[in-house]
């Protein structure tokens, strides 16, 4: 027998660590921030005496995001490797799990202990839960979110109507609650992968991890694309006169004019969430809902931005089409900026209306709707600008990522259930002005390039 086949190559030191870090990509920065917070906040005297201190909560959040991206990619790659029948997959996977546990759980727990946090077991379990939650999340197909939301609310509703159910749960020791959650999350993740006997063939059954590994998220054959360009989608007529429409079709899902049916289908999730919130109309549900309403509005406007991002990252998916097709607008940069803005607005406007009405029915403060409108417009303007800047160059893309981190925080932080202070509107007005200026600058910059569809 060939000697090279008999002996497996020895694992090079740091290879597993490098693999885990490479998979987590930019979320390593988040994890680093989590470590820093775990160390710094207790030193600054923040909440060591509380049952669930701030540094632990923030650190758990960073671990969650780290596990979602890195874990998703690693699981996806492991699946792919097993399908390719590569050797030593189990050993590699177990080494990766060990490294992930070390980086995501052990190190931050150790850091917290080093600065005087004595709840070592609790910290360990909470961080493990965060890690497992991330893994469980990416083990499920994306549509599950629409099932989990009503299920969560239904459970809440059921517990409300069961004598002293909440009391029993909240009086249970925190440690045992966390341990139960750990087991539950582990069971969910194992169940998701254990049930999968055949390689998933459709997005409907494909987990987020597999989508990440196959890079199928936001590709033009996904369900969002089907929603926009479903059966019998019109490809327009008289396109030689309607060059903007021709361009939007060339750009693909997210840009093309949807049919009334697919447009309605796109709005259904928002309507569903709004109805659910109204049905569950309780104080805590209402205040949570009001916090997340602006974020929902902005998320609804994402498809055209994601499509543009995909085209730039994967030009083979059709970036050459708008560059080479005849009969498209003569000023492509301006046409693209207009199309992007129009599509974002077309999606966000109905969501603003529905969710502002929902907020009013949930008892939001008098100027909540105004703050909602202002904050969402500002956010959309900034997203519009960074999407255009991100068409070229690392700086533009870095700006876009930074905005993706800052915007949700700003939107949630300023969506106050109580009447908002006067300065808030002024602050969002300045942000709106800045966003409009940034959009104009992005358009000007884009107009200076030979055309916006360059692949380098």
């Amino acid at each position, binding site marked *: 027998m060939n000697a090279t086949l008999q002996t497996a190559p020895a694992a090079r030191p740091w290879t597993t660590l490098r693999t885990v870090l490479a998979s987590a990509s930019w979320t390593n920065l988040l994890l680093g921030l989590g470590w820093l917070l775990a160390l710094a906040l207790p030193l600054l005297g923040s909440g060591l005496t509380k049952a669930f201190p701030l540094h632990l909560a923030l650190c758990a959040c960073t671990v969650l995001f780290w596990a979602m991206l890195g874990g998703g990619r690693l699981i996806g790659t492991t699946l792919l490797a097993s399908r390719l029948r590569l050797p030593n997959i189990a050993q590699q996977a177990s080494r990766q799990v060990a490294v992930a546990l070390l980086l995501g759980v052990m190190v931050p727990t150790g850091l917290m202990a080093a600065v005087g946090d004595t709840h070592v077991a609790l910290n360990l379990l909470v961080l493990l839960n965060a890690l497992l939650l991330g893994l469980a999340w990416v083990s499920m197909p994306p549509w599950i979110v629409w099932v989990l939301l009503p299920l969560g609310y239904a459970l809440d509703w059921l517990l409300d109507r069961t004598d002293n159910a909440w009391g029993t749960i909240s009086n249970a020791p925190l440690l045992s609650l966390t341990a139960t959650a750990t087991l539950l999350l582990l069971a969910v993740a194992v169940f998701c992968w254990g049930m999968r006997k055949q390689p998933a063939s459709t997005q409907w059954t494909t987990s987020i991890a597999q989508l990440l590994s196959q890079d199928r998220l936001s*590709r*033009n*054959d996904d369900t969002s*694309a*089907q929603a*926009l*360009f479903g059966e019998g*989608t019109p*490809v*327009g*007529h*008289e*396109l*030689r*006169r309607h*060059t903007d429409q*021709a361009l939007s*079709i060339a750009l*693909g*899902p997210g840009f093309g004019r949807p049919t009334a049916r697919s447009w309605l289908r796109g709005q259904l999730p928002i309507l569903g969430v709004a109805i659910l919130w109204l049905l569950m109309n309780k104080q805590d549900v209402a205040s949570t809902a009001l916090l997340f309403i602006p974020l929902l509005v902005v998320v609804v406007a994402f498809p055209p931005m994601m499509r543009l991002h995909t085209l730039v990252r*994967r*030009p*083979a*998916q*059709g*970036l*050459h*089409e708008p*560059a*080479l*097709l*005849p*009969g*498209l*607008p*003569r000023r492509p940069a301006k046409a693209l900026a207009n199309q992007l803005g129009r599509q974002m607005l077309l999606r966000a406007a109905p969501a603003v209306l529905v969710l502002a009405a929902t907020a009013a029915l949930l008892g939001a403060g008098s100027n909540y709707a105004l703050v909602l409108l202002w904050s969402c417009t500002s956010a959309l303007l900034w997203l519009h600008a960074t999407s255009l800047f991100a068409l070229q160059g690392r700086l533009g893309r870095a700006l876009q990522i930074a905005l993706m981190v800052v915007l949700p925080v700003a939107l949630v932080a300023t969506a106050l259930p109580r009447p908002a202070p006067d300065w808030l509107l002024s602050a969002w007005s300045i942000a709106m002005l800045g966003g409009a200026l940034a959009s104009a600058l992005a358009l000007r910059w884009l107009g200076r*390039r*030979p*055309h916006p*569809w*360059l*692949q*380098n």
Partner: protein
Amino acid sequence: MNALTQPTGAHALDLSMPLQARALQLRYGKHEVLRDVSLQLPRGQVLGLIGRNGAGKSTLIGCLLGLLQPQSGQAMVMGAPALDMDDARKMRVAYVPQQPQSFAWMKIEQLFAYLGQLYPSWDRSYADTLLKRWELDPGRSIAKLSPGQAQRLALIRALAPRPALLVLDEPASALDPIARRELMRDIIEQAIDNEATVLFSSHIISDLERVASHVALLHRGGIMLNQPLDELKERIVRLLLPAVVAESLPPCLPGELLRRQLNDGTLSLLIDKQNLPGELLLIDGLRVDHMGLEDLFIEIAE
């Protein structure tokens, strides 16, 4: 205003020279992909671009079509800068990428209805004939096509507007041998019927030999050879010189393309026969090899 009816701009449409490149240079970071590449593709020429994987074929095609912006140099399409093509030119240019993935959300018939509106010269009956010949169902969703079918579809959509310039990036890589032959036949038909100019990249030498009138060899970012195929096979020879003679040779002979010392000390010289110094032929132990295109490619690219 209808973009298709607008005037073509400052550059007159030059159909005699569909594609031209002058001193193209492109690098990604420190990696130089194209080094001073110049190329001319007159009307009716079928140029096969060969090179190893990663030699820069797709990058060169991207620059020639204005999809990539070179750091220096310029590509011209029918007399206008490739980066600033107008509709009059775009109507006459067709491009087939290496892995066609565009318009995956449409059905074939939807795609053709869309493209038929944009290309005034869209030949619907020709498209239907090709669809039938290659057994593609117009009602089929493009996302569900196999790679080979997707490539066939991309070829049909490129041929249907009856382009004056057809640029194909590894067009046959996902096709079976029968489909490859049919494709090559269609390329030739297209070139003859419409006096179309064709540029196609490939590393399947047999395909190239079947249809190309000219061959350009891209190696390490530069064009090493660009000649009519017959002339290339006729003129380029390999000389094998004994080791004792090798040391006495000047560092570069007229017409020399490549020099390589073999393991036994023999010197292998790739040289243009027309420039071959007569005294070289008198050397004892000299061997002259006429080479096929594949051998030539391997000799240079190795």
